[in-house]
């Protein structure tokens, strides 16, 4: 089989899984839908490996294969095919997406087993993975936008999965609306490119862009900025990040899926895929780099302050995606993708760990109420700590190599990019600090009652309630069931966390400076035409970068240890001393309030005005009321005859007959 056949298979399996589960949900018993969904993604992963092996058989120049199933739309001088592009970049993305998604599916098989919407969940989940794979395999803008929109729709379905929970539905709408902003930007960008290059196929566009556009051409910069807006909306970068923390309303494995494998990585993929355009429009690339850097600092600062466990991880995702966007924008494509991969490993792991902790807390997500789970859940403790080490960039873990490769490249670019690198180091320090703030607060210290209960082998039972509002909820369809499952007790959850923990430690071996360059070599055909192809930091510079990164990471972890373990009161004292700063950070820099005041409230006010004045008074009152009024007045005589009294009708009948009789009498005589 050729690589493109494998590419079609990668798409076919999750789609088949979606259809089987959604059509057969009535007859599939017990956990079978979960296993079908998991198997579909596993098969997609195996097909990705098949594509990889086949691609490696080709010579390096021939590793960009396009295959078209049928022509999607054809006009005079332009046609869009349902076509996939199999090249090292898309195969790499397929491997990461399907691989990590497979483990998340496996975890979900156990985690969601108490839920009323089990089949629905897995149908959505498979659809989500299918959309993401379609997005990364697309060979032209049309298919890319279709996959892009599917991902948005799937995320909406999964975020508001517990649809009776008002906060969840609201979060789903928020995510969808912000994603649509990105969709629109991307569509407009595609039109701008079609207008100038008269093609939507990636390879044709990339070849023709150099001729059609001059360096930093205004139209191209506009198109690239619009592409960036699309990427920012999907990847939750400033200022379109507000949906991601709210997306925590979905089930925890969904958070893992959105944050690690699908969705947020789409923006990074898009920037990397469009790199030939961004290299002709360096202004747009610089905007991307600055926004990425600002986002990583902003999100890290918020992650220090918030106490909701899942939200800390959510802000850490925004921050880490900031690194990737920055890397992709400063032409460190390989490094950006490397960080994408390692981040997928440790972020999925952290969410799974958080899921099992939340399960043990019977749904409570507030870190202020957690503590001392070290002995109650040793497996989660170890895997979560590994995830936190990788997130914090502890020496020799996966995150250590990938993050520092981006920063080393920024230093190598020189100029003002060095400033970005320094800010990224500050971000790395904050990352290490908040990563271990979670570990120390959740797992060390005095065990809370729930942890003690678990130590004695009994799972804490809590009232089902909304973690956001604290309101009690009924546990019918559309709510997390009363039974939460803890990682320690279920095999599939452990089987998913184990490999991820291993990968979070050793995932860095694919690109150790001076030792291995597997990833770089593999991705080379995609980036061979890049202007920055031959510019790379020397091994010496990279090693120095690693040393600096390692020291910063250890310092951050040390500070967290000092604040939360050595001197437990410090955090409270700092919080009191800088109350205004704490308030500012806990409220997430007041972004939500700002958008509320700038967009939401004007729109709802206008909507209310429309409903009251335009709908009620104008449409209902004037137009509809006027029309019925005219008819009513015009027919009043006709209606007056219809009294409803039987005898009046009889009288009319009689008078009619009498009149007819008289008429005939008169005429006949």
């Amino acid at each position, binding site marked *: 089989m050729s690589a493109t056949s494998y590419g079609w298979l990668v798409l076919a399996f999750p789609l088949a899984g979606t259809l089987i589960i959604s059509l057969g949900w009535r007859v599939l018993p017990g956990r079978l839908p979960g296993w079908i969904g998991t198997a579909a993604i596993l098969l997609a992963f195996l097909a990705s490996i098949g594509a990889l092996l086949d691609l490696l058989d080709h010579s390096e120049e021939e590793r960009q294969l396009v295959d078209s199933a049928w022509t999607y739309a054809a006009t005079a001088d332009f046609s869009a095919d349902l076509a996939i592009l199999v090249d090292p970049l898309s195969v790499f993305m397929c491997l990461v997406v399907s691989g990590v998604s497979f483990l998340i599916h496996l975890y979900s098989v156990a985690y969601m087993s108490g839920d009323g919407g089990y089949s629905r969940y897995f149908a959505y989940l498979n659809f989500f993975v299918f959309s993401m794979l379609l997005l990364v395999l697309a060979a032209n803008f049309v298919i890319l936008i279709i996959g892009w929109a599917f991902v948005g729709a799937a995320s909406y379905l999964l975020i508001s999965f517990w649809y009776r929970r008002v906060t969840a539905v609201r979060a789903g709408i928020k995510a969808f609306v912000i994603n649509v902003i990105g969709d629109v930007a991307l569509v407009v960008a595609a039109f701008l490119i079609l207008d100038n290059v008269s093609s939507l196929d990636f390879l044709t566009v990339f070849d023709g862009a150099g001729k059609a556009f001059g360096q930093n051409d205004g139209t191209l910069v506009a198109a690239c900025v619009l592409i960036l807006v699309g990427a920012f909306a999907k990847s939750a970068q400033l200022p379109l990040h507000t949906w991601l923390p709210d997306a925590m309303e979905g089930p925890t494995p969904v958070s893992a899926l959105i944050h690690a494998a699908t969705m947020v990585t789409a923006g990074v993929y898009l920037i990397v895929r469009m790199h030939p355009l961004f290299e002709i429009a360096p202004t747009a690339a610089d905007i991307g780099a600055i926004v990425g850097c600002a986002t990583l600092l902003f999100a890290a600062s918020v992650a220090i302050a918030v106490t909701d466990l899942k939200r800390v991880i959510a802000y850490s995702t925004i921050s880490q995606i900031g690194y990737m966007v920055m890397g992709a924008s400063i032409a460190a494509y390989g490094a950006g993708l490397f960080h994408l991969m390692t981040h997928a490993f440790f972020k999925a792991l952290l969410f799974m760990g958080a899921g099992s902790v939340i399960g043990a807390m019977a749904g409570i997500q507030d870190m202020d109420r957690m503590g001392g789970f070290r002995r109650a859940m040793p497996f989660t403790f170890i895997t979560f700590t590994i995830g936190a080490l990788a997130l914090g960039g502890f020496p020799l873990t996966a995150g250590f190599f990938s993050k520092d490769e981006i920063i080393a490249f920024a230093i190598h670019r020189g100029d003002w990019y060095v400033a970005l690198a320094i800010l990224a180091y500050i971000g790395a320090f904050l990352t290490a600090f908040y990563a271990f703030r979670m570990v120390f607060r959740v797992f060390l210290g005095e065990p809370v009652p729930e942890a003690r209960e678990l130590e004695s082998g009994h799972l804490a039972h809590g009232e089902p309630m909304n973690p956001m509002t604290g309101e009690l909820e009924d546990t019918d369809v559309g709510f997390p069931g009363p039974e939460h499952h803890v990682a320690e007790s279920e095999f599939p959850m452990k089987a998913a966390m184990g490999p991820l923990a291993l990968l979070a430690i050793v995932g860095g071996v694919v690109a150790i400076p001076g030792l291995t360059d597997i990833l770089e070599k593999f991705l080379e055909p995609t980036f061979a035409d890049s202007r920055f192809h031959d510019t790379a930091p020397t091994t010496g510079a990279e090693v120095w970068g690693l040393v600096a990164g390692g020291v910063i990471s250890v310092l951050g972890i040390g500070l967290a240890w000092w604040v939360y373990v050595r001197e437990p009161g410090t955090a409270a004292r700092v919080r009191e001393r800088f109350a205004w700063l704490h308030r500012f950070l806990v409220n997430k820099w007041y972004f939500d309030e700002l958008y509320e005041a700038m967009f939401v409230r004007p729109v709802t006010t206008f909507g209310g005005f429309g409903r009251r004045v335009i709908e009620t008074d104008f449409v209902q009152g004037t137009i509809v009321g006027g029309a019925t009024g005219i008819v009513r007045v015009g027919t009043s005589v*006709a*209606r*007056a005859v*219809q*009294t*409803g009294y*039987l*005898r009046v009708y*009889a009288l009319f009948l*009689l008078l009619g007959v009498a009149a007819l009789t008289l008429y005939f009498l008169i005429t006949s005589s």
Partner: protein
Amino acid sequence: MDITWYLVLSAFIFAIGAAGVISRRNPLVVLLCLELMLNAGNLALVAFSRMHGGEAGQVFALIVMVIAACEVVIGLGIIVAMYRNRLPIDIDEMSELRG
């Protein structure tokens, strides 16, 4: 005997029946008055039949009786239904067809 007397009697009964249908509110009486009107018609038919010496008019009279029986069955059925539903036995109360 002159047929005129029969026709006058028939017209007289018909007028009584019509006046009853129009003026009375009790559905039972309305039905009775309807019967009066029908039988006034019958009387005229039979009279004409005698005058012409044919039997067509008498056959018509028989058919009118059958129809009158059917009409009474339906009419009484409606009245019983009104009674069962505790509606007032008053046809002016059943004026939902008012425009």
